[in-house]
């Protein structure tokens, strides 16, 4: 009955298809939320579409569903491929898929009914927290076992990043979600914010970032057909990532009443966080040096190169934003929303999509249904996201400066209107891009021309 679960790469493909579907659903929920900020009575008294609920669905679905599922699927393909050994257990992979997807699916279902644990990025209900941790643990076991039974002696840098992700995330998620306290998923008092924002930054930092870097390290040298520039840089990047990224959650609550030593560590390490960012970018830059045209000419390579560009901006912005003097203006407003979009969609999302178009033919052994659609999708999402970044950053500065000058929040709202309209309109570009992507994935699987397997390695 479950014979399909034994087919090679079938679990990876399931994750990839799910990720492509979540991209569509997640961004549509983003549009619902954006419309609220343009016209709060557009969805009047429709409980499932009220802003406080759609925003939670949007954020969690794009984080865990779209970027998460897609990156996991790709990692489950390239890790065994780099180790020259099939994944330890394809069926265990399916089990991970089941648990992970169950959690993501619970978002639209429970949040829409007003059932949520509330804390940002830790909204999933306890029972679905458990299924997410089970997904992570099963993935960790599967990956470690595959490594132990590998045929290739050398562990390539992508393997470190992808495997370590699941070594870090299980425990971090458990801690950050205060899973030993099922009803609230929180601790009493202000201490809870430390747990909350520890996970708040481990989520992008130790879940989405290493998976994205793993994909970039896998795809770029394959496109340029040059060896990775520096092993030393790879090592430095890997260890600095886990050291600095796990210390900086406090910069989200810098202006709240928190112990000063914690704030200080958060700010200092936030500045150091630029180190792993720049290391990865330099390493890949040097790898494609002289062959940049090849990267940008390749439909998948373009996504990844631009993903790294967004990584550079996100990283620089993230470090600077942690400075208390800058945060005086940028905290609490749309500046941060702009930052979040280039981090998740721009950096890890772009790279996951690039990885998808590079690896889908390898996984399915079929040529992409349409390279042109990949280009169109790139144009749409790039335009949408660039616009988002500009519009939200301007809106954020307007808010931040006005508040700092003593203007109250209520009176600044009308000034945001034009930007919120633009933002909702730009969202349509991204949603269209996600639909084109899903169509291309489905058509490749159903109608793609078979490729010669010799071509692959």
């Amino acid at each position, binding site marked *: 009955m479950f014979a399909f679960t034994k087919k090679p790469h079938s679990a990876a493909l399931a994750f990839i298809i799910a990720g492509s579907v979540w991209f569509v659903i997640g961004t549509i929920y983003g549009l619902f939320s954006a419309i609220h900020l343009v016209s709060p009575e557009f969805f009047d008294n429709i409980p499932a579409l009220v*802003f406080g609920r759609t925003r939670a669905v949007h954020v969690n679905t794009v984080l865990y569903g779209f970027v998460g599922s897609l990156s996991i699927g790709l990692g489950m393909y390239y890790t065994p491929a780099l180790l020259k050994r099939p994944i330890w257990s394809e069926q265990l992979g399916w089990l991970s898929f089941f648990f992970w997807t169950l959690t993501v699916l619970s978002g639209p279902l429970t949040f829409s009914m007003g059932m*949520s644990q509330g804390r940002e990025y830790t909204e999933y209900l306890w029972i679905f927290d458990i299924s997410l941790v089970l997904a992570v643990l099963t993935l960790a076991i599967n990956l470690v076992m595959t490594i132990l039974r590998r045929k290739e002696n050398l562990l390539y840098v992508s393997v470190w990043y992808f495997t370590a992700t699941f070594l870090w995330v299980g425990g971090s998620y458990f801690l950050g979600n205060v899973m030993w306290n099922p009803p609230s998923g929180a601790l009493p008092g202000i201490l809870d914010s430390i747990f909350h924002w520890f996970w708040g930054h481990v989520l992008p930092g130790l879940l989405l970032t290493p998976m994205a870097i793993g994909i970039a390290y896998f795809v770029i040298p394959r496109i340029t057909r040059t060896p990775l520039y520096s092993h030393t840089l790879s090592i430095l990047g890997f260890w600095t990532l886990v050291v600095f990224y796990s210390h900086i959650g406090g910069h989200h609550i810098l202006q709240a*009443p928190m112990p000063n030593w914690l704030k200080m560590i958060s700010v200092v390490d936030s500045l150091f966080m630029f180190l792993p960012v720049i290391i990865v970018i330099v390493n890949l830059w040097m790898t494609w040096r002289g062959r940049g045209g090849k990267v940008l000419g390749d439909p998948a390579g373009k996504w990844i190169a631009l993903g790294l560009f967004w990584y550079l901006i996100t990283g620089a912005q993230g470090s600077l934003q942690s400075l208390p003097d800058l945060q005086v203006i940028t905290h609490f407003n749309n500046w941060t929303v702009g930052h979040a979009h280039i981090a998740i969609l721009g950096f890890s999302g772009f790279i996951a999509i690039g990885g998808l178009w590079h690896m889908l033919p390898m996984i399915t052994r079929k040529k992409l249904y349409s390279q042109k659609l990949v280009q169109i999708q790139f144009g749409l999402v790039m335009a949408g996201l660039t616009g988002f970044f500009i519009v939200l950053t301007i809106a954020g500065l307007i808010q931040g400066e006005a508040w700092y000058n003593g203007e109250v929040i209520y009176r600044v709202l009308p000034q945001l209107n034009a930007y919120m309209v633009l933002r909702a309109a730009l969202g349509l570009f991204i949603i269209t891009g996600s639909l084109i992507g899903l169509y291309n994935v489905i058509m490749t699987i159903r109608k793609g021309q078979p490729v010669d397997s010799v071509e692959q390695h």
Partner: protein
Amino acid sequence: MKMTPKIFIIGSILVWAASISLMVIFPWISMEDEPSDIWTPMNEKAKAGHQLYVNNGCHYCHSLFVRTIDWGKGAERIARMGDYYQMQPAILGTERTGPDLSQEGGEHPDDWHMAHFINPRYTNPLSLMPSWEFLGKEKIEQLTAYMQHLGWADADKRMARQEKWKKKAIAAYEAGPDSNITWLHQQVPKEWRNMPNPYPATEPALKRGENIYENFCLNCHGPVGDGMGKAAEYMDPPPLNFTTLKRNLAEDKYIGGIFYYQIMNGITGTAMPYFKRQLESEKIWDVSNFVAAWFVGYSDANIEPKGIDASYEPDWENPYLEDPEVQSEQDARMEENKNKEEVSK
């Protein structure tokens, strides 16, 4: 360095463990949850409201802590750690599409909150907040209880003040429209009662005032100023009907200063909020002139007593002056000004 499975698997876990020890476990051990000077326990209704606040994502637009750099509501209290004692979760928030709520308790009476949750634009026409009418009356009351709890002991003080004045305001309202206005006027210091609007009610000024009226006042006091806005049905006492003011001018001629004072300070106990943190001087005078000119049919703009005319002020004749005595005073003054100008030429 070669990355063997042993180094990278064990190493990754060790570095991670070191990080959480410092950043999570150490604060967990060392930080003590102790109540602050203003902390008070939450009652059951407020607890239910807190749960609704968390479950429905209110914190995506509202924060729960005031910073040293903040202006506006609640800025009299900078958040302290102990304010959140036992709150679970103390959901601080990351975005301010709406105002900070950590000191919301007692800012408005319960009836204001009912109208506001039913449709936020009833009380705040510019608001981007969604309507929560679908939650039903009981849950809205729980949310309101939570709002009124925020601010703890400070909120309790404000609530006591709301309740005290609500009784008086209702009694005054029930005594009939004219004695209600007499009572309202009595709450304004004498100096303000006998003060005319110092800004001329020119066409542009009335336009500006109209803009303010639409953004702040419209849905309580209504499009024709009769106090029959959409929010009115939720409010006790209901919003003031401006049209009854004409026969109740102070000393038969003043109304500007009363408007200014009431708009600035609000009327605690009623749904009329204070606007002194949202609107500054000229905006309040302009909207006072607008309400006076449009709904009362009379403005005391620019009449005596007044000081030296501001340099920008146009030669504006108050068209509302029917009282011959006031009229002649005004005329005499204008004549005098003219003479002065001629002399100086």
